[in-house]
């Protein structure tokens, strides 16, 4: 259990009792944005009781943010982002292959797939890079969240996993010794080159305390060059016996047959047998040295030399004792075993060997790295994962994703669970990533690799990505200001793209609905229509159309025309949508056409404006409640002194519509035709509106009379086109 302390503290240390006695306690609410909680001091008694307690207690009324996770800092963020690319690539590979042949492609067949090996090696490379970065001796403003040693530990664990569980094709049943020793020599370097330099600089290095330990360790680690070099110095040693023995030993070390030098195992075995015979000869020579001549002035040289020969003979007891003396651990014994004791040791034999070694050389239970190594050697994968999760959930999650296809997991162990063991580790890692809201893309990617439950969790993360632009920068206070910035927040685009990528359709629609709402609030009607069309939310489309038409009612034609200018492309999109609601589309078409009318009228294109009104009537675009408004607009044009904008038939059409309005009004349905006009006339009564229409009727009648007169003496063709200068 972790303890989170508030900074700065809410009250001084030791004042907890006073705080509680004052009737207060802490309360917390989880944040939907990440894994943090908002913490605050609040009442822990009823209000009346609170008043009777300690009114003078002055507490902080601040709200704290606390997180249980180590929120990734920049270097860690780089690591999780880099490795997420490899994870995604592996998922792509899994998804792009049919389930039936995926197992064989990924390793459930006889051999491990090169694809898995490649991905595992790529993880190793990134870990190595991160280790190198963390090791750089640079001044940092704050200590690294995960230091170089952490990445080194990941490196040793991951690379051991690759050695033991991801052999290259054809090598799964091959002796593992050389790879194991290489792993040990790469990660746990002994003896150090400093010790070697120190000894080689001396004239009589055998007089140095470190001489024999260095030599022994070098041989134990399978090296030949360094020990042979040092052995050469013994040609100056006063003991002739020793000089003689070295002449046997050095060629033996140099010619130790190693499996990698042979093209077949048979050739190797033959060479090794011969070499072992020579080792036997050396032992005989060694044993023949008289007891009293086994020491020089400094120490007994015979015993360490005998130990070295014991290593070459592959005598386990001697090797184990040497390791204890040299402070080496069980890993070193196992690796030496696979080179000197049983050169044919296979991967599957390791658990038995390691168990035997651990009986006398137990691992360090407080060292997670050591415990992970032991579990991997023993083939106890679940144990390894459990320790890995404690070390770094990153390791457990990426491991189990690789292991899933290696038949390493006991698939029956999780049968009674609702979430597979793989998904549990990956979701735990995704949960850790969620501590940093900026990592939402990769959080979602990991979650979406975990079946329907993971995808539902991803939905929640996607839905909570803020898709609105900075509120402070939005919402023009002046309606006459530029209404549409046309700016689509980047996060909105990203979220929608991610929804497409993972097939999260319901989330995409909800996000588009919320985006439409945001655009509507910002009076960006084009984008609002576009996003609500994308959300297929026709109820919302109706609200947006109402809001667009309300622009005219609230702010008049100029603002209306400008507000709707950006809607036309979205209208095309809407009309092309097979599921679009016809009623709302129709009303939106009217709004756009009516805005175009005003645009033309305001820019002086009166002829086209006049035609717009007729078209809106003839195509039945205009809702009846707008007829009164349209007729008044038409009459404005009719009253134009210098132009005759309508033909006589146009004038007749307008008169007909006017008659219908009057007739319906007289039948008590005036509200259906005149409601918008009444609002635009600042709440005029129906009578006042009808009075206005009467005046309009008179103007239209006069205009019609003028049309017929003009038509009598002028070019009728031009009149029909509606363009006649008076």
């Amino acid at each position: 259990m972790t303890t989170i302390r508030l900074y700065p503290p809410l009250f001084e240390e030791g004042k907890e009792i006073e705080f509680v006695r004052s009737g207060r306690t802490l309360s917390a609410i989880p944040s939907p944005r990440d894994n943090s909680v908002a913490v605050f001091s609040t009442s822990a008694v009823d209000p009346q009781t609170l008043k009777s307690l300690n009114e003078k207690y002055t507490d902080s009324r601040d709200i704290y943010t606390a997180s249980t996770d180590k929120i990734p800092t920049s270097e860690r963020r780089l690591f999780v982002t880099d490795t997420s690319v490899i994870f995604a690539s592996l998922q792509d590979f899994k998804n792009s292959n049919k389930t039936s042949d995926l197992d064989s492609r990924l390793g459930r067949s006889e051999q491990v797939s090169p694809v898995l090996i490649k991905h595992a090696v790529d993880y190793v490379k990134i870990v190595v890079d991160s280790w190198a970065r963390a090791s750089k001796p640079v001044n940092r403003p704050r200590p690294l969240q995960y230091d170089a040693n952490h990445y080194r530990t990941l490196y040793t664990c991951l690379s051991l996993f690759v050695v033991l569980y991801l052999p290259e094709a054809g090598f799964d049943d091959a002796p593992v010794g050389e790879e194991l020793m290489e792993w040990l020599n790469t990660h746990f370097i002994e003896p150090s080159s400093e010790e070697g330099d120190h000894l080689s600089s001396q004239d009589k290095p055998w007089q140095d305390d470190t001489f024999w330990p260095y030599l022994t360790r070098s041989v134990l680690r399978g090296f030949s060059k360094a020990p042979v070099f040092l052995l050469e110095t013994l040609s100056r040693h006063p003991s002739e016996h020793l000089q003689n023995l070295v002449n046997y030993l050095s060629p033996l070390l140099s010619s130790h047959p190693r499996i990698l030098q042979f093209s077949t195992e048979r050739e190797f075995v033959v060479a090794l047998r011969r070499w072992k015979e020579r080792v036997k000869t050396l032992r005989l020579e060694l044993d023949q040295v008289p007891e009293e001549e086994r020491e020089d002035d400094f120490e007994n040289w015979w015993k360490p030399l005998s130990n070295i020969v014991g290593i070459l003979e592959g005598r386990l007891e001697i090797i184990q004792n040497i390791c204890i003396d040299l402070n080496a651990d069980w890993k070193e014994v196992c690796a030496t075993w696979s080179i000197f004791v049983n050169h044919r040791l296979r991967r599957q034999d390791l658990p038995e060997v390691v168990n035997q070694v651990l009986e006398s050389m137990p691992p360090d239970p407080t060292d997670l790295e050591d415990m992970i190594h032991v579990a991997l050697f023993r083939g106890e994968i679940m144990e390894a994962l459990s320790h890995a999760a404690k070390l770094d959930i990153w390791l457990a999650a990426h491991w189990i994703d690789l292991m899933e296809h290696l038949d390493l997991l006991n698939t029956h162990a999780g049968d009674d669970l609702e979430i597979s063991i793989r998904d549990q580790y990956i979701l735990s890692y995704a949960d850790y990533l969620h501590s940093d809201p900026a990592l939402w893309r990769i959080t979602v990617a990991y979650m979406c690799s975990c079946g329907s439950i993971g995808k539902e969790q991803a939905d929640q993360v996607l839905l909570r990505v803020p898709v609105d632009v900075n509120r402070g920068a939005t919402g023009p206070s002046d309606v006459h200001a530029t209404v549409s910035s046309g700016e689509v927040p980047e996060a909105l685009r990203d979220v929608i793209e991610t929804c497409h990528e993972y097939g999260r359709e319901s989330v995409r629609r909800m996000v588009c609905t919320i985006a439409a709402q945001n655009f509507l609030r910002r009076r960006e009607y084009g984008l609002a229509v576009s996003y609500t069309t994308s959300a297929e939310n026709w109820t919302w489309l109706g609200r947006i159309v109402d809001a667009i038409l309300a622009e005219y009612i609230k702010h008049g034609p100029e603002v209306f025309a400008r507000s709707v200018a950006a809607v036309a492309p979205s209208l095309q999109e809407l009309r092309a949508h097979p599921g679009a609601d016809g009623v709302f589309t129709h009303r939106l078409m009217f709004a756009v056409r009516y805005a175009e009318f005003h645009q033309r009228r305001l820019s002086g294109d009166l002829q086209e404006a006049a035609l717009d009104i007729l078209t809106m009537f003839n195509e039945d675009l205009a809702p009846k409640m707008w007829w009164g408004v349209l007729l008044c607009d038409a009459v404005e044009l009719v009253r134009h002194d210098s132009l005759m904008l309508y033909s006589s038939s146009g004038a007749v059409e307008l008169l007909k519509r006017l008659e219908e309005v009057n007739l319906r009004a007289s039948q008590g349905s005036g509200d259906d035709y005149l409601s918008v006009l009444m609002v635009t006339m600042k709440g005029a009564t129906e009578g006042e509106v009808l009075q206005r229409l009467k005046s309009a009727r008179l103007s239209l009648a006069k205009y019609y009379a003028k049309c017929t007169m003009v038509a009598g003496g002028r070019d009728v063709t031009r009149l029909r086109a509606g363009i006649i200068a008076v």
Partner: protein
Amino acid sequence: MAPSDPIPIETAHEDMIHDAQLDYYGKRLATCSSDRTVKVFDVVDDEPQRGVGQTLKGHAGPVWQVAWAHPKFGHILASCSYDGKVIIWKEQQPASAGWAKIKEHSLHTASVNSVSWAPHELGAILACASSDGKISVLTFKDDGQWGADVFEAHAIGCNAVSWAPAARAGSLLAPSTGGRAAPVKRFASAGCDNIVKIWGFSEETQAWVEEDVLEGHTDWVRDVAWAPNIGLPRSYIATASQDKTVLVWTKDTPTAPWVKTALDPSISAAPGAGATPGKFPDVVWRVSWSLAGNVLAVSCGDGKVTLWKENLKGGWECVSDVSS
């Protein structure tokens, strides 16, 4: 916490804070206080307006709770107060114009202790719990009208309400029955009668019906929180009580009974602390679930908040505690 962590938000409330709620995106925080006000702050680090608050005045008594509506309805807040009122606030455009009171609900005759918005799929619906023993459910319609169902719920008083997720638990895992299932209209209420009630809306009678009674607490139930269901086949409800216990109620299938488990702080308590199994050191005031429903925050009268997680074996473990 390291010094580089975010600095606290100074609310400048003049009296005790009773509730704080983060909005849908976790970017804004609403707080309410005995000083009769509601305040709204930007809390995200990179926002230039971080920590700058707006004050919403309108209540005549301490304000107990605030609740954010789903963003598809706009920037809307509900608050409830000792004055018996529920106020619905809407942020004006532009945002600098502040918040306006758009509705005031005063159908209760005593303090309103809790407000909770229904899942957005059900529409803009608000449930309110009052000391008058009643619950009111307000439904806001598209035309700006609103309706209210008020009914008796708990004798002596109701302390809290919490809605069930709209999607039935496990509906994703169940085989499709064709067609989209209607969202569930259901919530839980916590009362001074020591019980928790589950209410469901009957489409037939168009009324709220008591569906279940959860008995297990031995003193007032102070809070109830229905967990979001993320794919799992069961439902979870957490309840906090004056009896110093937190019960987690689970229901494996829609027809199964509710089964209760008490959180046990004694497991993680220091040895020799004298903790009683299944009991917290003091009254438990609040319970709240995280977004994915995998973490339960518990606020106890002992001055600490503890965070709980369910382990793979179905047991509950305290994973963190937060103290000053």
